[in-house]
């Protein structure tokens, strides 16, 4: 299994600013994903973080709003840009290797005021 450290665990941000969330895995993984989740709701996939190339975004999510980096096989960042209150949510990092299950970080609870 893989252990995923995600930080910050929570933050309160002013609208119009940006927040970068970091995701560190304790071992090399094949795939890394970023999700958004409203409390008590299901997970919505934002994008797949590709090592050494641009992330692959799901419908409704764009790079200008959610730039993602993945410089190596164990680390990724998600930036929430030009934030508005509608961006308030829980952001989750996930990773997997081969055909195994996905592992998750503890999540970042973001509140935009």
């Amino acid at each position, binding site marked *: 299994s893989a252990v995923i450290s*995600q930080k910050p665990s929570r933050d309160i941000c002013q609208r119009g600013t940006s927040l970068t969330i970091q995701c560190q895995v304790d071992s090399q993984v094949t795939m890394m*994903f970023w999700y958004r989740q409203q409390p008590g*709701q299901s997970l919505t996939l934002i994008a*797949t973080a590709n090592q050494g190339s641009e992330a692959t975004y799901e419908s409704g999510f764009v790079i200008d709003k959610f730039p993602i980096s993945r410089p190596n096989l164990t680390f990724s960042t998600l930036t929430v840009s030009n934030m508005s209150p509608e961006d308030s949510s829980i952001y989750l990092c996930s990773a997997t290797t081969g*055909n195994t299950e*996905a*592992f998750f*970080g503890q999540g970042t609870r973001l509140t935009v005021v």
Partner: protein
Amino acid sequence: AQSVAQPEDQVNVAEGNPLTVKCTYSVSGNPYLFWYVQYPNRGLQFLLKYITGDNLVKGSYGFEAEFNKSQTSFHLKKPTALVSDSALYFCAVRDLGNFNKFYFGSGTKLNVKP
């Protein structure tokens, strides 16, 4: 496209009774199915998976799930519910033909009452 559905938003059971959380799937090809649990203010924790083999899969914390191909179901079960099992449960499917993405059901809140 691969998908899973959880028909119940909430399941209520008494402690000591058996519990079932339902999941149905729609996939092309062989399904890779998973169950996760989420406690308040925490990330998702893996419970169990079905890739191939026995239809009854055993996982963490005494949970098990039965894969039923004819009914396209993958229900989560536990013989004896505990109050500490109260949490949000997600069924998920892995789409091997689409960059190995995971797709999650809507979630089922399990309430175990003492």
